[in-house]
């Protein structure tokens, strides 16, 4: 492979990893817990900003041309972990504003509003967030270990992103297959019934928000440490719809389906259109992309609302154990045998 092509492939793989992490976070909130989380991009942006400013040196670096909070030049894993913590923590105020006592469609609007407030504040508070310019020159983690060999570093970062994705998958799997995950789904399917079974709805919502928010922040952190820049205009609320489209296309509340959706919607579209010739006015291809995303949403909601890989339904035995395919098969055999015995008698 030529090195230019390797750069392209590695960058694409990292973007895919970032989008998959983010989509898993949103899927936990939207697919599993049933929260129409239109402010999801705020978690990603906050995580990205946190990781960026913690990895950056003091504000006086590089001639002091940008303002930001922090600037502690912290070593590698700390900015990412801190970003996750911030993602989980900001879930609490956002959740308390938007999720308490509101109808689900009001919640959606309230969260949309939160997203817009956040981006206006980030754009206008030049002293805090450096305004629309955002931050740049965020150092790449562990880059000094590679002695300027950029291509090897790219592959290293691909491996790192993949490892993070694997860990995140295990965590998401653990959460969705735990009693907590069951409570999330109960809340999604019938809030009143879940509440009648003494499930604390507000607590569950906040928890889903926090876990999904931490994942979103993680994805943002990985992205910003890779590309080295952060600007509020890249994190506007329509970006949430792209992830939402990926989830709906891939399969709501199915982690592998989400991966398929991400590979099709953000990665497939963004990259597919890269190879289109420049036709018409600038922005035409961009508009076409959004039209295609809208059409894809409608087509999937109409023909296959469950997505390409639908959610797997779990059954539980009386002792609370998960009924697997093998159990079903054994039960079916046992019943057939009993039937044969009875008829032969």
């Amino acid at each position: 492979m030529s090195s230019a092509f390797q750069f392209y492939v590695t960058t694409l793989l990292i973007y895919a990893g970032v989008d998959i992490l983010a989509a898993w976070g949103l899927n936990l909130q939207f697919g599993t817990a049933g929260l129409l989380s239109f402010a999801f991009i705020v978690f990603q942006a906050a995580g990205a900003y946190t990781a960026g400013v913690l990895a950056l040196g003091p504000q006086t670096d590089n001639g002091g041309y940008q303002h930001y909070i922090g600037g502690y030049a912290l070593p590698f894993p700390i900015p990412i972990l801190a970003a996750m913590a911030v993602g989980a923590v900001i879930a609490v105020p956002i959740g308390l504003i938007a999720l308490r006592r509101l109808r689900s469609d009001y919640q959606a609007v309230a969260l949309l509003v939160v997203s817009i407030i956040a981006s206006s504040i980030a754009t206008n508070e030049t002293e805090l967030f450096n305004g629309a310019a955002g931050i740049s020159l965020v150092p790449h983690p562990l880059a000094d270990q590679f002695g300027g060999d950029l291509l090897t570093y790219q592959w290293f970062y691909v491996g790192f992103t993949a490892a993070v994705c694997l860990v995140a998958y295990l965590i998401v799997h653990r959460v969705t297959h735990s009693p907590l995950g069951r409570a999330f789904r109960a809340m999604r399917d019938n809030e009143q019934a879940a509440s009648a079974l003494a499930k604390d709805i507000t607590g569950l919502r906040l928890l889903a928000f926090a876990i999904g928010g931490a994942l979103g922040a993680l994805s943002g952190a990985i992205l910003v440490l890779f590309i080295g820049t952060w600007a509020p205009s890249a994190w506007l609320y329509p970006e949430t719809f792209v992830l939402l489209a990926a989830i709906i296309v891939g399969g709501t509340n199915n982690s592998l389906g989400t991966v398929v959706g991400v590979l099709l919607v953000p990665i497939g579209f963004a990259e597919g259109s890269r190879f289109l010739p420049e036709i018409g006015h600038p922005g035409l291809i961009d508009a076409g992309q959004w039209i295609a995303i809208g059409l894809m949403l409608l087509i999937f909601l109409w023909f296959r609302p469950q997505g390409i890989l639908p959610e797997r339904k779990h059954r539980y035995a009386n002792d609370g154990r998960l009924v697997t395919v093998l159990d079903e098969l054994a039960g079916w055999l046992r019943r057939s045998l009993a039937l044969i015995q009875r008829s032969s008698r």
Partner: protein
Amino acid sequence: MPYLLGPSIGFGLVTASILALAAVGFTMQFGVTNILNLAYGEVMATSGFVALIVNRAGLSIWFGMAAAAVFGAALSYLLNRVIFIPFARRGTKLFGMVIVTIAVGLILENSILAITGPNFFSYIVPQESTYSVGFLILTTSQIVLMGLATLAMIAVHSLLRLTRLGMAMRATASDASLARGCGIRTERIVDAGWLISGAMCGIAGVALFINTTSFTSATANSFLVVIVAAAILGGVGQPYGAMLGALVIGLTSEIAAAFLNPAYKNVVAFVILVVVLLLRPQGILAQIAVQREIAR
């Protein structure tokens, strides 16, 4: 009075007028159909561009506004018939419907963008003269817009209170199945709801574009959240609440723009919304309105 207060109240009243047109249309449709239509901003934009075509053809912008009203009504009616109702029949719930409306909005907005390109447009409006009314200084088109909004509010009030259609709409909004049981053809009422709200949406789109003087395919969509804020502030589905919400948000956002950072104009409105949602999630007027409905 501080010297900025007068003009900002003037701007606030104009914004409130546009907002009232849009929010009352939005909330009436929501009340009757229970669909939170996030494609509303894009219907405004599409109608606004229809008015642009009429205006560019050499007709006055007020003809353009009439055309936009007709177009907005037709587009809303068609969207409901061709997309929203079939989805609802197929079992898409409130939640999924919000996503359907977003998808429709994305398609509409980006279709305009694909046709017009990322350019700024403006209507040809006749020479404006300014009038000072008390401490307010207003242009001709601003006065016309305010008058128009006032007329529309009176029309909505008369429709809801004095006509059989309005009564049927209120009945459908408060309990659709009960209304059907009483022999109201709710399907027709829903159609009427979309037509009326679409017409108001078209008028509001042109009003918004006249007031912002230059606009793109995305202008109306960024205004949508303010509209929804006004509607929720008053209690969604409550036309009188939406009027009040529009007045509150229009005035506070313009006054805030004059005295704080203008970039925070909408943020102030949203903060009011968030506070209201925390203290009175049902909106300002919901309780009063519900009691009034019972008393009749």
